């Protein structure tokens, strides 16, 4: 394979990876921006999305339906969790939140194991994108192209949501000064529940999209939360743009790092996280924790 072709395919690869990481990271950062908590269950919800997607595809035969329904289901679950449980903790310290979302992660992981069994499950990609396309003579799965495209589309959509819509305005305002928003007569609680639900839904969306690529497995929950956390740390907690940049950065590091030093992928991530935490604890663009 020529060097140019190599770099091209690997770069598109990285872009598709970045899309998945972006879905993970943007939800986490939105939740942090509004609620100042790190949703530890994010990885588990990503995994849940993958498994629900698997079942929906098997029942309905349509990947697209699964792509729409699974995130909605998980978003509803997340909103319910926020309403029933998280609401009671707003007056407590940050550790209580962390542990409760950790508890949620455990419960979700166990539930997945009970419902779908302990084995990893294969999700077939949609027929529309299950072929290959030729980039500079090298075969490249179209599904990855689709992912990269979907990532770009979602990034623009979320950006527009935040900048142009009333909901986006409320989200941005609440993340800057919740009390003021409350004083203006807005039900901040509703905004919080909505954002938490959206964040969870985005994680699940990432999970469904990832499933045809990596199979739906149980180890996802823990590894993926670390990935999400690293992205958000790098980009900055609470920054939408930061999560995009972080996702791109980590994806490229992972893809090219995996090629040159395959065994050290996890150690490398750990090092990157460490470096950022030490040098710029606020991240590149973020609000302080």
């Amino acid at each position, binding site marked *: 394979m020529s060097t140019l072709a190599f770099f091209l395919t690997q770069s598109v690869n990285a872009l598709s990876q970045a899309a998945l990481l972006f879905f993970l990271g943007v939800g986490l950062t939105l939740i942090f921006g509004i609620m100042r908590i790190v949703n530890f269950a994010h990885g588990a919800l990503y995994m849940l999305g993958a498994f629900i997607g698997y079942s929906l595809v098997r029942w309905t035969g349509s990947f697209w339906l699964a792509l729409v329904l699974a995130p909605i289901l998980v978003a509803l679950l997340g909103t319910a969790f926020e309403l029933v449980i998280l609401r*009671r903790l707003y007056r407590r310290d940050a550790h209580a939140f*962390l542990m409760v979302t950790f508890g949620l992660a*455990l*419960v979700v*992981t166990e539930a997945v194991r009970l419902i779908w069994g302990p084995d990893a499950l294969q999700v077939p990609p949609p027929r529309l994108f299950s072929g290959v396309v030729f980039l500079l003579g090298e075969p490249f799965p179209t599904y990855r192209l689709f992912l990269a495209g979907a990532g770009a589309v979602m990034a623009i959509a979320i950006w527009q949501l935040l900048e142009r819509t009333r909901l986006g305005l409320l989200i941005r305002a609440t993340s800057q000064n919740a009390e003021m928003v409350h004083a203006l007569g807005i039900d901040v609680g509703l905004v919080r529940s909505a954002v938490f639900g959206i964040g969870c839904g985005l994680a699940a969306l990432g999970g469904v999209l990832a499933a045809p690529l990596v199979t739906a497995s149980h180890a996802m929950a823990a590894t993926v939360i670390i990935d999400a956390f690293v992205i958000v740390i790098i980009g900055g907690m609470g920054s939408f743009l930061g999560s995009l940049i972080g996702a791109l950065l980590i994806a490229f590091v992972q893809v090219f790092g995996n090629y040159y030093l395959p065994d050290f992928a996890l150690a490398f991530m750990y090092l990157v*996280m460490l470096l950022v935490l030490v040098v710029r604890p606020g991240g590149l663009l973020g609000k302080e924790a």
Partner: protein
Amino acid sequence: MRWSSLLGLAVVAVLIAAPLGLPAFAMTLLTELVILGLFAMSLDLMVGYTRLVSFGHVAAYGLGAYACGYLLLNTSLPLPFAVLLAAVMTGTVAIGVGWVCTLATGVSFSMLTLAFAQLLYAIAFKWTSVTGGSDGLAGIPRRAGPMGLTVLTTKTGFYYFALAALVGSYLLCRQLVASPFGAVLRGIRENETKTLTLGYNTRLYKIAVVAISYALGGLAGALYAPFAGFANTELLFWLLSGQVLIMVIVGGSGTLIGPILGAAFFLLLEHQLSSYTEAWALFFGLVFIGFILFAPQGIWGLLTAWFKRDWMRLEKGRRHGT
């Protein structure tokens, strides 16, 4: 509190007398409880006394188990020495872990501990020559002690060894939290900035408590390896980190005894419920969430409050959190 010292002595007496009356399978369960109790108690030093929430305590457990297993399989060290050496090795590695993780605070600290545990998990899979890969180390012998003491190879003998480790560690921890060092830990827990500005190099104290906590966790793991006869990657899976954290919180953090109760509660659920349903671990997670919401002081906290007829403390515990 005198009544609790008496109660403690009574409990220890019962534990010592246990082998006389209990059947073999109950002895196995009891030994497992002792080991798990030690594991949970070691985490309490970090979580309960210093508010360093670790999501990766399996790292200590797994390190201790693998180290001890390796020593028992590849050297002729007697059992007690292998166990203790494994614990010391774990504590030494933990100094480095602590140094790294304390570069951050709060959630970032917790994430770093998780990342380290995940790193060990990955290493355990890949470094097959030392760790046996996904199969792990098998056939770990419960070797005789020094000077030909074969008592440790028996179920009862090993039980007493584990019990001695637990009681010894408990006394060590009790001593530690009542010392000037412990007073500083408490300061860090309640207001780290203030402790720093009072003139304490808080990072050093945090590293020290991480090292001690991991060493004791490693001791528990090192006991587990010869107890079960194997050490594999299951011991490093993140779910176990979660479960031991739950034991600490549900049992009652910051009390040393609480986590042991939490371990007992966990084992009870596992062995009683698993015959009815596979969902016992899920149930355990739900119980955890329930305790955080409604009884953050844990079982031991509830018990002591009830015994003192201190209703105000029950209320305060519910309102002021973990």
